[in-house]
């Protein structure tokens, strides 16, 4: 529809919305109002995520599990999501990992978007049962595969903080792919 107006910052107006029709009124109709709104939050991540974030500061990836359980969760919230029981045992996982899913991104948006095309992916750190999110680097986007073995590339030591941004991206390592069969339940 030619009357559509662009409502996103995507190139070429990927998202549009039908033009607004306003009933006849005297004078110029109000079609849009801008109402500034902001709220400040002092977010506290909690016990578990604090342990995880402090680990990242040491270039370590910490998962947790309930005592006696096998499954180690990483990027978790203090409970085993299957049983609801608190995870009190800290287990270091990775740093090497396996790609369990990926997506070739052709339209980047947001201030931190890498140059396109880039590959976002889920990374199953060795020893963990759930994957972490990140981007793949140092490899052509059409060479990325499910099952590919990777390692994290960290920011310089003096730039380490308690943040996932400590991992700049993940890059392939010289190990054979993990067969998709073995990734069942993790994809």
């Amino acid at each position: 529809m030619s009357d559509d107006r662009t409502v996103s910052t995507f190139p070429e107006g990927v998202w549009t919305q039908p033009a607004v029709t306003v009933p006849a009124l005297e004078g110029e109709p109000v079609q849009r109002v801008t109402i500034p709104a902001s709220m400040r939050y002092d977010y506290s991540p909690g016990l578990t995520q604090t342990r995880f974030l402090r680990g990242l500061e040491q270039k370590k990836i910490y998962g947790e599990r309930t005592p006696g359980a096998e499954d180690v969760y990483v990027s978790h919230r203090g409970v085993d999501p299957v049983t609801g029981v608190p995870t009190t045992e800290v287990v270091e996982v990775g740093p090497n990992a396996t790609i369990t899913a990926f997506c070739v991104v052709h339209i980047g948006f947001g201030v931190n978007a890498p140059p396109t095309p880039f590959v976002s992916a889920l990374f199953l750190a060795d020893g963990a049962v759930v994957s972490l999110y990140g981007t793949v680097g140092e490899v052509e986007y059409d060479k990325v595969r499910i099952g590919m073995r990777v390692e994290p590339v960290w920011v310089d030591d003096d730039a380490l903080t308690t943040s996932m941004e400590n991992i700049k991206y993940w890059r392939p390592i010289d190990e054979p792919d993990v067969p998709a069969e073995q990734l069942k339940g993790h994809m």
Partner: protein
Amino acid sequence: MAPQRNVAVVSVAQTPHRRAAAGLSETEMIEPAIRQALDQVGATIDDIGFVCSGSSDYLAGQAFSFVMTLDAVGAWPPISESHVEMDGAWALYEAWLKIQSGHCDTALVFGYSKASPGDLPRVLTRQLDPYYYGPLWPDSVALAGLQARAMLDAGAITEAEMAQIAERNRNAAKDNPNAQLQGSPSADELLTAPYVADPLRRHDCAPITDGGVAMIIAADDAARKFSSRPAWIRGIDHRVDSHNLGARDLTRAPSIAIAAQHAGVADGKVDVAELHAPFTHQEKIVRTELGLGDDVLVNPSGGTLSANPVMGAGLIRIAEVANRISAGEADRGVAHATSGQLLQQNLVCVLEGE
């Protein structure tokens, strides 16, 4: 609405209520209450047919915060689950309907928030309409001040009565180990304090609280299996007043009276009532609209003035009445929950023992 099935509250558990559970995530904060509610009736999540929670992303400052909290329930294999962006009392209503419709016999309900990450009176302005009120950011205390002023001018309450309500609630909270505020100076002393938002003084306002509550409800035989004295829900109803504050008589909340009528408040003697009134003068409105007599024990827990976890404080009222019935201290009680500004939305629940 006349219940088709008998549904009862069979287990409740609360977190400690405090100004800030600073070291905990919401999930870590509510998990012990969920666990306790299940454990004290020997249930696991496998015994629960439906899960419903009440919370708000605006309080958490985090998108889909309630999904993360589901980890504390143990949601795998997938469970039947829902959520309301309202007080947990409305989550209870949804769960009650689910049981009435025959879809399940048991439900886990919880309501909670961490109000501490944000500026609560400002966060609550986001409940207002976006064109007329929202852009003005009228905070919840200032709005409550308008309502209190309207009541004082109408002769519906006095500042001394308001102070007495504060004193009574916070002294009652001395028997409530979960309460955030326990004990109060005398009403006379309270009246010497400066105004926060004239005519409201600090004691007229509920505290800002992190905390929550979990509850298990069950139908008929399931309820009897879990509890030797279930607190049966004899009536439950919720209604709304206008969103437009300028169109309301702020000294009244007719939606409470309508909900009370449909829930059957007047159909028997009321031993105990727990009223969700975040400001002292609102307790008077709720009490009047419910038609409670002077012989009714009101807010023996200390009420919302003693612990105010937003999105949990209404469900806590129902939990406190249920506790007293199950303990044999009361035979019939009324719980009221509110949501929105100035008692805009109201739920009334009548509970009874056998």
